[in-house]
């Protein structure tokens, strides 16, 4: 068994670190960045793209100034998460995965962010907002520029 399993080389394990660096520097991971990472690690472009699209905190599309991440996992869903998602859709006028035309907000769904005790919860950039209601969201959105 052991001789059959494929192992990544030490370099290839750096893929997440490099993708995070690219994400931090430009706000998203461009195709050029992915080509560069693939070449420097000696893996295929599709593998890099596969990792970059798997994680909800990595983005392959340009993002707005503020990134809203709403939790779509079970605890938030049970606490009316869907209602929150729909109300945010209405307030921003965009669907999950899209950016508002003025570039102010990007709105994405994410997996559990570990704020289940304050469900339903969302992240705006690095700030946690819990126990959300449609009214509360409207107030929170006003504080971001």
């Amino acid at each position: 068994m052991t001789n059959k399993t494929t192992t990544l080389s030490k370099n290839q394990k750096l893929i997440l670190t490099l993708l995070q660096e690219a994400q931090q520097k430009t706000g998203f991971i461009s195709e050029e960045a992915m080509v560069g990472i693939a070449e420097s690690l000696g893996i295929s472009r599709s593998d890099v793209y596969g990792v970059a699209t798997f994680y909800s905190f990595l983005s392959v599309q340009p993002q707005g100034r503020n990134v809203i991440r709403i939790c779509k996992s079970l605890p938030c869903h049970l606490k009316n998460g869907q209602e929150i998602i729909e109300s945010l859709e209405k307030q921003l006028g965009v669907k999950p995965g899209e950016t508002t035309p003025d570039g102010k907000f990007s709105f994405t769904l994410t997996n559990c962010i570990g704020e289940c005790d304050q469900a339903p919860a969302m992240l705006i950039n690095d700030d946690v907002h819990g126990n959300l209601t449609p009214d509360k969201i409207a107030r929170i959105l006003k504080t971001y520029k």
Partner: protein
Amino acid sequence: MADITVTMNGKQVGGPAGITILELAKQNGIDIPTLCYLEGLPPTGSCRVCVVEVEGSRTLVASCHTPISAGMIIQTHSPKVLEARRVIVELLLASHCGTCYMCEKANICELREVAVDLDVGVPRFPIRRRFYPIEDESPYITRDLSKCILCRKCIRACNEVAKKHVYAMGYRGFDSKVVVDFDEVLNKEVCRDCGICIPYCPTGALSNPQKSRKDKKGPPLVIKG
């Protein structure tokens, strides 16, 4: 290597250490259905069709990636196993696009064969299906990802057999998809002169480009009244 003795379906059988339950079953003439298993390549255990019951194990285990260990008591065709397999295949079929009668592979499809063997019937679950446009730009491979069951065989065939590294898994959960480069349409720029992955596909997701389509390349004939 030292031989290990296990009990399989009530019979004592032995095999060398390190082989999997599936391999041991094969050696002893027991047929366990598989979809994602590829002989000689590392197992992924993604299709779950090969699950078996191992006494003392909390769950059913996938036989393709579970090595045998001394004293294991294995049931390969118990009612519990068969029921689990049926539901697994039923779920695979439920999210499969379901136009089998129009599919080229209808009579040689591995997914359909397994479903027929297990008497699965028409799936009960009205779940969301994934539909993607057919990719027929490449002269070597036609891809219809609506039919893909994400077994990852084409990825392994491309990486390990052809050594081309064209495919990879992209996205997550329900959106999972076999991607080419940055989720591009499979064309002859990224993949050429190969087609090794086609026979590995257990469904009709990968196929040889049909000859008939070439005949359609000519100017359209319009009958005017």
